[in-house]
C-alpha cells in the first residue's frame, strides 16, 4: 500500500517518511514524491539523439521533452474536452518573434535572449545554425523531413547575430514554417557538439546519443536502456510555462495487459497509447480516464496494388470498396475509437477537408455488378497482408475484409508480415497485392498526404498508383498557400480522383488514446504520436 500512497498524485495527502521506512537508497525520490509523474510506454527508447542513424520513433519523445525548437504549435480543446495541438497556430519556443521578408523568400527569427542550455551557456543563433546544418547534413530521416519543408542546404541558414537567425527559402512554401515545429529541427549546444566532434563523427552523434545538451523543459536524470528514462525539470526553461511535475519516470512495460493493470490500479499515472479495445473498456468501466483524438492526416486504408493484374482495372478496385463491411470493421477492429471514412455524400468533394469520408459504403450488389463488367467476374485469389506490429487492429480488420471479399467471389488469404520485413516488402519493394497501410503525415495538409501516398515512387504509395494528373496536382499544390484561389479547386480535384480511382480504400481515421489516473490532467494529443509530458499536471480537485 505504501507505494500507492507514495505516488498518490498530486493534491492528495503526502506520504510521510514514516510510510517509507526503506528509502535510504532512494532519498532523491522521497524528497518530493507528489510531483513525480510515472508514465508507462510500450516501446524501447534507443537513443537520446533523433538525428542519429537508427534512432527509433519512440525516442522522438526525448526530443519533444528535452529539446526546444524555434517554433511549436499551439493547442486547442476539442468539443469532448480533449486537448490537441493546433496545426494552424504557431508560437515561439526558442523564438521570441519571427517575420517573413517582404518578398516572401526568407524568415528572420529573434531568439529569446534569456534562453540557456542546461549547462548555463546561452542559446545563440550559432547553435540554431549548427543544429539545422546537422539536420540537413546527416542524411536519413531528419534530412528527408527537413527537405519536406524546403530546407536542404546549410547555406540557407544564417546566424545574423547572437539572437537573430535567418532562413533563406529556395522557394515559397506553406510547409516551411510548420516544418520548423516538428520534432526534427531541435536545437543542441553547438559548443558541446563541436568539442565532441571527431573526423569520423563530425556532428557528435555518438556523444549526443547518450549525453543530450539542450535547453528544453526536462533534462535526463538517468537512462537505463530497455527499462526506463527519468526526466528532471529544467527550472530555467523559457520555451513555455514551467511543467507541473518536477520529475517524470518513463517506464517501458511491454505487455499491454500489464500497462492496463498498472494504470487501473493507479501505480502509473499515464499509460501512453492504449489499444482501442482497452480504451473503450476503461472508458465504459470508468476505471481510468481515457483521452484521445483522431490522428490528423492519418488513415487506416486497404491498399490495392496496381501492379497486380486485376487491380489494374479501376472497376475491380471500386468493387472492393463497395464490398467492405465498414461498420463491422469500425465496431470490431476500431472499437468505435475513430472517425468514419466511408459513406460520404457525393463523389464530388464539397470541401478540401482531409481526411473526409469516401463515397463508398457496403453494397454487395453494386460490388458484384462492377466486378461483372470486368474480365474478373468469376473472382480471383489474392493474398491480403498486414504488419504483425499492427495486429491489434490489423488482424480483425483483415478477417472482416476477407469475409466481405468472399461475398463477391474474391478469395483472400491472410498473410501476416513481421516487423522489419514489412517496410521492405510493403513500402520499399511495394510488392504486396492487397494490404493494410496506415500512413499519417506530420504536416497537416491534404497535398502533403497525397505527396507521400499518391505519387509514383513515394514511400507510402504502396499501391504503385501512377497518374500524371495526380502527380501534377500534387506538385502544384504542395507548396502553394492554402489562401491562394487556385488551391481549393486543385485539392478538390485531387480528392475527387482519389475517390474515383481508389488505389487506397480508407477504413477509418484512427484515434490515439491514452489512459490516465483521474487525478491527472493536461494530456495533449500530438501529430508526432509521442507523449509530451511538459503539459501534464495534477487535476484540480
Amino acid at each position: 500500500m505504501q507505494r500507492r500512497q507514495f505516488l498518490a498524485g498530486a493534491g492528495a495527502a503526502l506520504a510521510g517518511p514514516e510510510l517509507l521506512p526503506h528509502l535510504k537508497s532512494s532519498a532523491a525520490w522521497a524528497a518530493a514524491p507528489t510531483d513525480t509523474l510515472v508514465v508507462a510506454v510500450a516501446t524501447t527508447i534507443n537513443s537520446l539523439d533523433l538525428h542519429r542513424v537508427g534512432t527509433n520513433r519512440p525516442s522522438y519523445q526525448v526530443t519533444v521533452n528535452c529539446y526546444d525548437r524555434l517554433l511549436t504549435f499551439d493547442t486547442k480543446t476539442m468539443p469532448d474536452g480533449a486537448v490537441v495541438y493546433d496545426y494552424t497556430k504557431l508560437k515561439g519556443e526558442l523564438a521570441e518573434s519571427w517575420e517573413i521578408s517582404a518578398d516572401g523568400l526568407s524568415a528572420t527569427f529573434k531568439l529569446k535572449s534569456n534562453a540557456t542550455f542546461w549547462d548555463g551557456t546561452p542559446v545563440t543563433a550559432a547553435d540554431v545554425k549548427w543544429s539545422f546544418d546537422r539536420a540537413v547534413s546527416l542524411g536519413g530521416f531528419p534530412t528527408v523531413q527537413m527537405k519536406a519543408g524546403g530546407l536542404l542546404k546549410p547555406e540557407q541558414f544564417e546566424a545574423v547575430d547572437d539572437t537573430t537567425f535567418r532562413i533563406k527559402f529556395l522557394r515559397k512554401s506553406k510547409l516551411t514554417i510548420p516544418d520548423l515545429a516538428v520534432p526534427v529541427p531541435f536545437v543542441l549546444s553547438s559548443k558541446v557538439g563541436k568539442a565532441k566532434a571527431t573526423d569520423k563523427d563530425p556532428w557528435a552523434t555518438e556523444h549526443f546519443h547518450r549525453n543530450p545538451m539542450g535547453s528544453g523543459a526536462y533534462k535526463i536524470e538517468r537512462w537505463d536502456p530497455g527499462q526506463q528514462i527519468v526526466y528532471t525539470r529544467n527550472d530555467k526553461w523559457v520555451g513555455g510555462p514551467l511543467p507541473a511535475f518536477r520529475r517524470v519516470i518513463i517506464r517501458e512495460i511491454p505487455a499491454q495487459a500489464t500497462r492496463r493493470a498498472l494504470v487501473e490500479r493507479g501505480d502509473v499515472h499515464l499509460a501512453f497509447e492504449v489499444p482501442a479495445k482497452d480504451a473503450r473498456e476503461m472508458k465504459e468501466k470508468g476505471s481510468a480516464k481515457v483521452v484521445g483524438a483522431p490522428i490528423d492526416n492519418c488513415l487506416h486504408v486497404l491498399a490495392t496494388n496496381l501492379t497486380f493484374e486485376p487491380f489494374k482495372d479501376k472497376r475491380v478496385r471500386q468493387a472492393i470498396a463497395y464490398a467492405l463491411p465498414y461498420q463491422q470493421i469500425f465496431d470490431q477492429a476500431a472499437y468505435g475509437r475513430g472517425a468514419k471514412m466511408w459513406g460520404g455524400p457525393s463523389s464530388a468533394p464539397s470541401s478540401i477537408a482531409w481526411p473526409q469520408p469516401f463515397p463508398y459504403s457496403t453494397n454487395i450488389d453494386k460490388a458484384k455488378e462492377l466486378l461483372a463488367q470486368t474480365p474478373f467476374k468469376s473472382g480471383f485469389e489474392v493474398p491480403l497482408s498486414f504488419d504483425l506490429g499492427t495486429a491489434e487492429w490489423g488482424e480483425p480488420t483483415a478477417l472482416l475484409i476477407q469475409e466481405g471479399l468472399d461475398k463477391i467471389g474474391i478469395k483472400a488469404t491472410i498473410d501476416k508480415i513481421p516487423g522489419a520485413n514489412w517496410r521492405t516488402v510493403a513500402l520499399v519493394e511495394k510488392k504486396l497485392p492487397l494490404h493494410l497501410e496506415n500512413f499519417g503525415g506530420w504536416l497537416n495538409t491534404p497535398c502533403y498526404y497525397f505527396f507521400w501516398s499518391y505519387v509514383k515512387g513515394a514511400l507510402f504509395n504502396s499501391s504503385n498508383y501512377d497518374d500524371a494528373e495526380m502527380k501534377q496536382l500534387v506538385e502544384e499544390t504542395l507548396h502553394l498557400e492554402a489562401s491562394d484561389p487556385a488551391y481549393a479547386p486543385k485539392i478538390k480535384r485531387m480528392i475527387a480522383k482519389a475517390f474515383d480511382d481508389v488505389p487506397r480504400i480508407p477504413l477509418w481515421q484512427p484515434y490515439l488514446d491514452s489512459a490516465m489516473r483521474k487525478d491527472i490532467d493536461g494530456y495533449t494529443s500530438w501529430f508526432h504520436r509521442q507523449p509530451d509530458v511538459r503539459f501534464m499536471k495534477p487535476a484540480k480537485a
Partner: protein
Amino acid sequence: MARSSKLAIVGGRLAEALPALIGIIVVTFLLTRALPGDPAVQFAGPAADAKSIAEIRKSLGLDRSLPEQFVIYLGQLASGDLGQSISTGQPVLNELVTRLPASLELTLAALLLSITIALPLGILAATRPDTWIDHLCRLVTTAGVSLPTFFTGLALVYVFYYLLGIAPAPMGRLDIVMLPPPTVTGFYTLDALIAADPATFRAALAQLVLPATTLALFTLAPIARMTRGAMLQVLGSDFVRTARAAGLSGRTVLLTYALRNALLPVITTLGMVFSFTLGANVLVEKVFAWPGIGSYAIEALVVSDYAAVQGFVLAMALLFVTLNLVIDIVYTLVDPRVGGEG
C-alpha cells in the same frame, strides 16, 4: 586417480566445445543474414527515401560483401567487441552484461522454487503410487505443462496484484522508488545482501516472487515427473530389494540408495529445463516488464538487429557449454561409477 579422471572429463568437454563454438559463430552469422527483413530499411525510419536507405546501409557496413562482413565481425570478436545493437543503441556486450543476470536471477529463482516442490512431490508420489499425493502430482504436472506461461503470468498478476493488491506492481526488477544496489553479481537480491541493504533485498525479492512462481509452475512438471519415474524404477530394482532384505531402515533405503541413483536422470532433466527456461521465458519477461535477455533477443530478431542476435546466440552457446560442463561435474559427484568414490 579420481581427480585426474575428473580433470580429464573437464578438459575433454572443453575441447569438444571449441568446434561447436566456431560452428555457432559461422551459422549465426549466416542465419542472421538470411533473415527476411532489411535492417537498413528498418532503421532508416519513417519517411525515408531510397537515398537515405542507401546511406544507412553504408553506415551499417551492410553494403560490403558477406565474406568482408564476416572478416570484420571476426576481427571485432577477437578484440572482445560484440558490436553495437541498432535497436537499443547500446553496445551488445553492455546489454548482455546487464540483461543476462536479470534472466539468470529469474530462472535460477524459479528452478530453486520448482525443485523444492517437485523433488519431494515426485518422491512421495513414487513411494505412494495411486494415492491422493500421486494424483496431486499428476494434476500439478499436467497443469504445469498445459498452461502457457503467458496465461499463468497474467492470471497471477490479475489475482495477486490487480484484485488483491498484495503483490508489487509488475514493473520490472525493482519498484520505481528504489535504486538498484551496487553491481557485484548482477543479481539484485544477492547484491543487496552484499551491500547489507535488507530493504532493497526485500523489494527485489518481492518483485521476483510472481514471475518466478510463473516459471516454476511451468518447470515443475518435467522435474516432478522425472523424479517420480526415476524413483519408481529404482525402487523396483534388485539392489533396493536387497537393501530392504538386509534390514536397512526405510529412510536409508529411500534417501541414500534409491534417491541418489534416481537423481542422475533428474539432473539431466534439470539441465535441459534450465536451458529451455532461459530461452523460453520471453513471455514472462514481457508480462512482468523484466529486462531480461529473452525479450531482448526477440526484439532484435524482429527488427533484424544482426549484432544483437549474434551476440545473444554466442552468449547462450557459451552458457550452455558451461552448463553442460557443470552437469558433467555434478554427475561425477553424484554417480559413484563416474566419480570413482570408495
